[in-house]
């Protein structure tokens, strides 16, 4: 393994006689700039949000949610049993029949707008809690997660009274009760992705957040309560896999929307086979980020970095396979190392932190296991030499060179800050390698030629192809996968289709 260090001034790098190393040292250091969590109120204990009421779980069981950066317990959260899930589904069904499906779209829109505005008003608190519960840098929760979540509610509020225009004059009816299961990587944003279109289309919701990151979904329940939505329109049940399974298996559910791992997605698909339940799955990915020699290289470096290190790589559409045109391999590696030397790993609440904590111990173990397999299989590992905090779960930004297309690190989703770099010679070879995966969620293409981007976009089997950028999201742009990355689209006019029956 080679360390990515801060370099030494003016010293030629070994093996590259005519080149010189940059020096990112301590000439002018940034003082700590932590966002203060003092005014944020996290309750010691959270109940289930069912039928508009905070309800103790019939199981009487609670589980802890911890801050992955400190390993400190943040709160106790109710564990919903099958009976609790049943109560939530019944509440959602009642709300569907009594209020929500009957309500004119323009009235539903007012509620959804209200949620969007309330999110903006509480943005700072939500960002801080998101960072404390999940470990992501505050600059990301502040500038991306929370504003994008608000944008999803705003966008879908606009659709609520215009659904008849979304399907070319055909009438769109709501499905009924949607059971929604979301992951821990973007807890609040995924809740918004799921809830906003469901509500806009006239469905009611039972949502289960991930067990490691339940807090912001519960804060969203508080917001929904304050916005005075009719009771039962949105229900939040917390818990782990068993709670999710109870939701999937419940006969009163009309639609399951799941975002998470491919393994769990397959189990869900089996479970709903032969039932009336509609299903959309947004699963794993192993996206190719393809850099051609004619790309704006310095900007491609930024795209590579945000592609894999955004949210510690806990991103299903992360650009985790970097395909470099062979002629620019060395220069890209060199520039990537220098760029990574400026990255700041540490306290996620510090406004200058670039890399926060890994979401959970289990995820850290999985990352370590896959990285070890990469080293064992013979790839060359390069990791940022940085101070790792004593407490909490951390992994330094890392990339592998000399990796084979067949290595596990090139095929399996690592879901961490670990990039696998390979080369290609021609556009056709890039396409073949990019598509040589069971996944198909996203891809990136870097070239100065617009025509090449469009050609690649038609050939890549991925739900989203980014041109000269990466990890860009907008509520109006549909998102979803090919192959084992799932099916169904979220966002845009296409995303509405998952929540309506079109006559």
């Amino acid at each position, binding site marked *: 393994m080679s360390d990515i260090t801060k370099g030494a*001034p003016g010293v030629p790098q070994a093996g590259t006689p005519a080149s010189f190393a940059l020096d*990112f040292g301590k*000439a002018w250091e940034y*003082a700590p700039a932590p966002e203060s969590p003092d005014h944020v109120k996290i309750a010691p204990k959270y109940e289930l949000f069912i039928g508009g009421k905070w309800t103790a779980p019939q199981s009487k069981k609670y589980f802890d949610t911890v801050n992955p950066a400190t390993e400190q317990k943040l709160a106790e959260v109710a564990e919903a049993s099958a009976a609790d899930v049943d109560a939530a589904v019944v509440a959602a069904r009642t709300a569907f029949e009594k209020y929500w499906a009957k309500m004119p779209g323009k009235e539903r829109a007012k509620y959804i707008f209200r949620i969007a505005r309330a999110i903006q008003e509480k943005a700072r608190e939500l960002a801080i809690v998101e960072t404390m519960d999940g470990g992501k840098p505050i600059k990301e929760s502040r500038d991306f997660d929370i504003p994008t979540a608000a944008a999803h509610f705003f966008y879908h509020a606009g659709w609520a009274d215009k659904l008849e225009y979304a399907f070319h004059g055909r009438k769109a009816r709501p499905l009924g009760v949607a059971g929604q299961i979301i992951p821990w990587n973007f807890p609040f944003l995924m809740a918004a992705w799921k809830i906003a279109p469901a509500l806009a289309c006239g469905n009611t919701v039972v949502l289960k957040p991930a067990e490691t990151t339940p807090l912001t979904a519960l804060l969203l329940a508080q917001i929904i309560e304050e916005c005075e939505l009719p009771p039962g329109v949105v229900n939040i049940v917390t818990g782990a896999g068993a709670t999710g399974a109870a939701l999937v298996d419940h006969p009163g559910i009309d639609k399951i929307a799941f975002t998470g791992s491919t393994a769990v997605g397959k189990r869900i698909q089996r479970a709903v086979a032969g039932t009336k339940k509609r299903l959309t799955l947004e699963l794993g990915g192993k996206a190719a980020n393809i850099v051609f020699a004619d790309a*704006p290289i*310095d*900007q491609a470096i930024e795209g590579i970095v945000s592609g894999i290190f955004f949210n510690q790589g806990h991103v299903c559409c992360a650009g985790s396979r970097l395909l470099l045109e062979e002629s620019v391999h060395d220069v890209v590696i060199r520039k990537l190392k220098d760029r990574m030397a400026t990255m700041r790993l540490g306290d996620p609440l510090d406004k200058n932190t670039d890399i926060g904590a890994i979401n959970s111990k289990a995820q850290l173990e999985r990352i370590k296991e896959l990285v070890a397999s990469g080293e064992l299989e013979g790839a060359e590992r390069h990791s940022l030499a940085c101070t790792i905090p004593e407490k909490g779960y951390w992994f330094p930004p890392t990339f592998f060179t000399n990796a084979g297309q067949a290595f596990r690190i090139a095929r399996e989703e690592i879901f961490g800050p670990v990039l696998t770099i390979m080369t290609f010679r021609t556009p056709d070879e890039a396409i073949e390698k990019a598509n040589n995966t069971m996944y198909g969620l996203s891809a990136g293409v870097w070239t100065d030629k617009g025509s090449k981007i469009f050609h690649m976009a038609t050939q890549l089997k991925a739900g989203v192809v980014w041109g000269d950028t990466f990890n860009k999201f907008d509520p109006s742009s549909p998102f979803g996968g090919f192959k084992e990355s799932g099916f169904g689209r979220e966002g845009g006019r296409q995303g509405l289709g998952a929540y309506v029956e079109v006559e």
Partner: protein
Amino acid sequence: MTTALFKRSAPTRASRFPLFNPPPVDQVAIEERVANLAKRSIKKASKVAGLKLSISMMDLTTLEGKDTEGKVLQLCRKAVRPLDSDSDLPSCAAICVYPNFVRIAKDALGASGVKVASVATAFPSGQSPLEIKLDDVRRAVEFGADEIDMVIDRGAMLSGDYGKVFDEIAATKEACGPAHLKVILETGELGSYDVVRKASDLAIAAGGDFIKTSTGKVQPAATLGVTLVMLEAIRDHFYATGTRIGMKPAGGVRTAKQALQYLVVVKETLGDPWLTPDLFRFGASALLNDVLMQLEKERTGLYQASEDFSKD
């Protein structure tokens, strides 16, 4: 009469750079990158250190038709000792004036260590014959200028006559003798980041010690975006040769907050060795007082009135 299909000056030194093929620049990504860097939170000790550093990097500038001896002398005093009440503050890096005031400035600054920079080469348009521009440079150096801030021929740049641009810079460098050469690209007239990159590479290859964004007479002047594009050119040159070229954003940097944003972009693009007046300068006039005001605020906890700072 036939017209040449391609523009061609006399054989140029640029033609000896067959690999003159600057990389493309993506505008959206450049602006996203600097917007992200501008969000770095610089507080407390790092704020004070950054502001003091930025004073030491300032080319305190007056370039007006109404400049007088009195004005230049006042500015010299300010450059040597920016704040009477605080003798710990560094002096500015240089005074930047027209050639007519170089002697006066030189005498006034004496052994203070503050350098005299003079604009030359028919500043700001550069639209004069080369001989006149070179003469302008030689005289400014004769008068005692330590540094020469030249302008490139933007007309030649935009019409594709890169050889002419290169040759003029090379000739100016020769005319500078011992004086340092800063090459002003006037990025506000170049129209795109691609041309800024191209001009940066030319200026570096032709012998510029510094590359500089603007004259201050054209809007937009310095921006974080053009600065990053130019720093990337400097970085690629360093990678290839080990030689460090300096950078000077000029015009448009008016607040302490902006100055810190520029320092962040330099720090995270080129690293520590560039965080010195030898390799980074601000061309500014209004900036100094805002920096002083922020430093006083950090020192005393209170904002002073703008009247508390001398307006020279």
